[in-house]
């Protein structure tokens, strides 16, 4: 594909007001919990207090007798989906004969009011037989750990491996032995990272309406309503066409709304009661039962020459994605050394089961924790060798033609340019005060493309409606509309973009992997080109010339040259006005499984100040450098970079799932699970670089995920330099800093 980088963009690169802005500042926008239906019931879930137990019996008879209760469901109401994956998802939504984590759903009630449903839950009698549990990744991997599920290993694992091990992967190239032999310095370190939650402010919510004719409608906040439709249809034993899913506005997701939790339960309650059922998770339920990230433990070993060139790198990642198999550590193992041109590299990933909720994606899943380990060791080696850590990264940075650590050879990538921008930025040379230090880290994300459908209708007044199928999680309606306006040569205000439901447009993969601006943008540009071709035909018809002699420029058809004929340009408005007389309505569409997403790199610089008495870490200054390929709406690109950085800062400093010895989550609320608040932070400077992605007509790369990757190590490296001892265990909370200082005699 040719990228039109010399193009003189008129709309792309500007900062128009987003089309959904007014609805979202006036309270009119409808989110997951905002819909109602006539005769609607309220559904609530009863959850297990045990981390691991056999369900001996469930007695719902008293609950059913409570006036106002219309339906009760348990695992017995659900069948056995053919697909093992769907079966796992279903079991996570509603337990069958065992509970696998504190908060696991065991029953649900639908009643005429939320308070009645809550009362009914207390009348359900469940007899559990508690089983031994394990919530720590290293403990679960150890010999003799309680076994959570048997026979879930996807590979033939070496004898003696924990029965909880399910997934294994290995990547790399070159001769490690030879590589380490060439090194002047070898550093090997172990790291641990806590599970964190996506922390979207909108709890998961849905409204399900199942009709007695077997058709159903589901309204929910999700990143991917097609995926919700496919999962729920399989769980409910429905054909896909009979279940229409509409994505509400979404109050944050960050990967956490790529699966289902209460949706099939609401459908089942609606089916049994014959009435619409609304379910809204509480914040406590969100923490206990929706996807946190993996928790991980890893060993990193790097060899380096005395001038800073890496000769070999190795990482072993042990991760847990909760009580069901998870492949997230595979993306971590791929990403660990992706930033560098490694002569020899090997990464190994393990997943092990623990009694925790089923892990869900969180912004660049797997990459932040893996890269935290690698970037920490590089920082330590730079310190030991007396080298500038930024120069070391420039020396080793992957470039076009580099064989990546996970297999592919990179084409045009922006890491070196991003590192150079960081080096030349005033932040990197700015003076530091007492107890302050500076850290930096590179970051990487693959970026996804994927299956995408876009339909573009030209209205009779020449304005345009776009129907796409990816929930707008951070301004994508704006960027999609901008690309359509750019391609058609019309004002952005003439385009309105909506997100269709599953019955109104073909399949779309979930809003994930930073795919939307890239893939939906690509499909939108091609849908616009499809419409343009049709409009050129209509103009040719009116002019009575060959369609090949018509071209499109600035929102109008015009003869391609003097030989084609002498006609003034015919605008989209004129063509549209004549549509019914020249063959009927005009629309363009495009369906694609988009590849060529173009990998993404970023570099972050963090200045911290660590209070010598309280060990509280304050972020003093923070700058993000990231390659956007082409920033369609720069304000929302900056927003992705800033938001990702702050989530990463939270992961580095505050956020963690804390399980007690009883296997129960101890901090299931925003008071005790502390995400960064406004007063914790400085401004987050965002520097956009534009190294065009050859896989997109305008050079666009996804920008959503890379931003969360570097902060873990950037902050850890800064704190390490501030306190004089290496911090290897996230989050770097004050007690850990105190303990590390005490251990180092400081």
């Amino acid at each position, binding site marked *: 594909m040719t990228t039109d980088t010399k193009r003189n963009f008129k709309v792309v690169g500007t900062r128009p007001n987003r089309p959904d802005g007014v609805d979202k500042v006036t309270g009119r926008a409808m*989110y997951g919990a905002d819909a109602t239906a006539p005769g609607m019931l309220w559904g609530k879930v009863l959850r297990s207090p045990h981390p691991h137990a056999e369900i001996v019996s469930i007695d719902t008879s008293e609950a059913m007798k409570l006036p106002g209760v219309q339906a009760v469901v348990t695992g017995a109401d659900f069948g056995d989906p053919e697909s093992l994956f769907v079966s796992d998802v279903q079991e996570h939504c509603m337990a069958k004969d065992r509970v696998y984590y504190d908060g696991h759903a065991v029953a649900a009630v639908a009643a005429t009011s939320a308070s009645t449903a809550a009362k009914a839950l207390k009348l359900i009698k469940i007899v559990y037989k508690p089983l031994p549990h394990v919530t720590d990744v290293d403990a679960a991997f150890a010999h003799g750990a309680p076994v959570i599920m048997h026979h879930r290993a996807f590979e033939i694992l070496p004898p003696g491996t924990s029965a909880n091990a399910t997934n294994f992967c290995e990547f790399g190239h070159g001769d490690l032995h030879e590589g380490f032999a060439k090194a002047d310095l070898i550093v090997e370190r172990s790291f641990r990272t806590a599970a964190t939650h996506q922390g979207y402010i909108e709890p998961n919510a849905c409204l399900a309406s199942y009709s007695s004719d077997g058709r159903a409608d589901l309204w929910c906040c999700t990143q991917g309503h097609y995926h919700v439709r496919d999962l729920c249809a399989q769980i409910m034993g429905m054909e896909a066409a009979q279940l229409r899913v509409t994505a509400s506005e979404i109050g944050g997701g960050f990967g956490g709304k790529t699966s289902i939790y209460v949706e099939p339960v609401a459908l089942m309650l609606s089916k049994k009661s014959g009435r619409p059922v609304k379910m809204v998770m509480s*914040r406590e339920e969100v923490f206990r039962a929706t996807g946190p990230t993996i928790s991980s433990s890893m060993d990193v070993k790097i060899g380096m020459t005395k001038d800073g060139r890496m000769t070999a790198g190795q990482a072993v990642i042990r991760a847990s994605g909760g009580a069901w198999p998870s492949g997230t550590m595979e993306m971590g193992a791929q990403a660990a050394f992706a930033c560098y041109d490694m002569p020899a590299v090997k990464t190994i990933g393990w997943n092990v089961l623990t009694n925790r909720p089923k892990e869900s994606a969180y912004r660049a899943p797997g990459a932040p924790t893996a890269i935290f380990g690698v970037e920490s060791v590089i920082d330590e080696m730079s310190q030991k060798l007396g080298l500038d850590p930024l120069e070391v990264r420039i020396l080793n940075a992957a470039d076009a033609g580099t064989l990546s650590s996970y297999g592919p050879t990179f084409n045009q990538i922006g890491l070196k340019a991003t590192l150079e921008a960081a080096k030349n930025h005033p932040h990197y040379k700015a003076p530091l005060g007492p107890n302050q230090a500076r850290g930096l880290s590179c970051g990487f994300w693959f970026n996804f493309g994927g299956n995408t459908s876009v339909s573009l209708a030209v209205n009779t007044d020449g304005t345009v409606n776009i129907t796409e199928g990816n929930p707008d999680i951070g301004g994508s309606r704006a960027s999609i509309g901008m690309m359509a306006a750019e391609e058609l040569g019309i004002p952005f205000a003439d385009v309105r973009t909506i997100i269709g439901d599953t019955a109104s447009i073909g399949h779309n993969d979930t809003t994930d992997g930073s795919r939307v601006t890239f893939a939906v943008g690509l499909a939108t540009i091609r849908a616009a080109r499809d419409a343009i071709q049709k409009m050129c035909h209509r103009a040719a018809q009116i002019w009575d010339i060959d369609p090949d002699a018509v071209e499109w420029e600035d929102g109008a058809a015009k003869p391609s040259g003097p030989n084609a004929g002498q006609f003034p340009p015919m605008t989209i408005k004129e063509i549209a006005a004549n549509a019914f007389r020249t063959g009927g309505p005009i629309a363009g569409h495009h369906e694609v499984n988009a590849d060529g997403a173009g990998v993404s790199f970023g570099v972050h610089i963090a200045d911290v100040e660590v209070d010598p008495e309280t060990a509280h870490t304050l972020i003093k200054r923070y700058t993000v450098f990231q390659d956007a390929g082409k920033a369609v709406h720069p304000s929302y690109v900056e927003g992705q970079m800033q938001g990702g950085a702050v989530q990463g800062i939270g992961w580095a400093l505050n956020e963690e799932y804390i399980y007690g010895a009883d296997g129960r989550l101890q901090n299931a609320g925003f008071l005790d699970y502390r995400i960064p608040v406004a007063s914790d932070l400085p401004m987050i400077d965002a520097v956009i670089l534009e190294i065009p992605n050859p896989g997109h007509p305008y050079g666009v790369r996804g920008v959503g995920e890379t931003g969360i990757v570097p902060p873990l190590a950037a902050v850890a490296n800064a704190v390490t330099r501030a306190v004089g001892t290496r911090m290897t265990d996230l989050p770097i909370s004050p007690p850990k800093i105190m303990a590390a200082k005490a251990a180092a005699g400081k």
Partner: protein
Amino acid sequence: MSTIHVSTTINGAPTDFVCEHDETLLDVLRNRIGLTGSKEGCSSGDCGACSVTVNGRLVCSCLVLGAEAQDAEVHTIEGMADGPTLHPLQKAFIEHAALQCGFCTPGILVAAEALLKEKPEPTDEEVRYWLAGNLCRCTGYDKIVRAVQAAAAEMRGV
């Protein structure tokens, strides 16, 4: 279940409702009055997505009982714009891209309006501390602080 009859004023309009004795103002607004602009993010007063003012005081409506609205003046996000004319804060949030998902936005706008009533010329630090009870997971707060300052400047006529 006994219910309570409450007479109140919401966004300037006299309003009557009945609610359960333990029902929160947030649930009343959302489920009985149909004002779903105030959001429930935590129901424990930690996230601020349900921020409203009661008799001019900024509160989390999830921590106020519906019954407490008797004879009170309640203001919600739905009352912020003057008909079709957006409040300068609302305009600034759109123009500065200070929202991504928009879920925390109503609460932050209500809180920011209360700040600017009290302090028309806040420092960035004052904005950050005032909004520390309003969680936003999308933006990293940078553009929110800038938008509040831009609106404050516009409201001061500079």
